[in-house]
């Protein structure tokens, strides 16, 4: 992956700091229907000819989680060399295989509203699998280099 397509190195830390609050907000919104009142947006429904409030908390949480995961996943490493580029590409391929293998299993065994939840998680799991695999390989090679 060309280093020009990567975020600057400091974005990894920013992504890690942002991920936790957005994840908590997402969980609170999904399971406890928590909403920020200041994110209410008046929407006009032309068929019923009424104006109602639409809350944007879940959109904020979704975009926040997505951006923070992208920053963690695609920020430059301290020494961004060709080995790191190869590990990044292999990890991305591995993550896509694992993600869609799990999705295929869920398509077969999960139905109804539970499947809707699976789809929500699946939007993010490809990035999470990538981050875990990429950092695990880097950790493993740095350990073997130290010993």
């Amino acid at each position, binding site marked *: 992956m060309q280093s020009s397509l990567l975020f600057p190195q400091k974005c990894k830390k920013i992504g890690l700091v942002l991920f936790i609050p957005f994840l908590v907000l997402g969980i609170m919104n999904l399971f406890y229907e928590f909403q920020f009142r200041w994110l209410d947006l008046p929407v006009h429904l032309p068929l019923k000819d009424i104006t109602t409030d639409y809350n944007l908390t879940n959109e904020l949480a979704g975009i926040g989680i997505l951006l923070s995961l992208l920053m963690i996943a695609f920020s430059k490493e301290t*020494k961004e*060399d*060709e*080995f*790191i580029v*190869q590990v990044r590409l292999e990890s991305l391929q591995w993550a896509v295989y694992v993600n869609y293998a799990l999705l295929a299993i869920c398509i077969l065994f999960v139905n109804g509203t539970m499947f809707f939840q699976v789809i929500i998680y699946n939007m993010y799991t490809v990035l999470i699998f990538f981050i875990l695999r990429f950092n695990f390989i880097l950790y493993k*090679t*740095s350990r073997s*280099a130290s010993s």
Partner: protein
Amino acid sequence: MKNTIKIQRAINNITQEELAKLVGVSRQTINTIESGKYLPSTLLALKLATVLHITVEALFMLEKQDWEGIN
């Protein structure tokens, strides 16, 4: 493919860290090349050969299994 980086490092009396700095990569990269887990690009192979004062052919050697699968 096998390599003689470890031997050449010993001859030139330089550490993995120093070699990494000379060719502009991380120590992990040198370590994975040395152990045969990662094959460097042509550019990096040429850089390694240059700083170790040796030819690329003397630094990296093909093995029998590298020819397997070719008709």
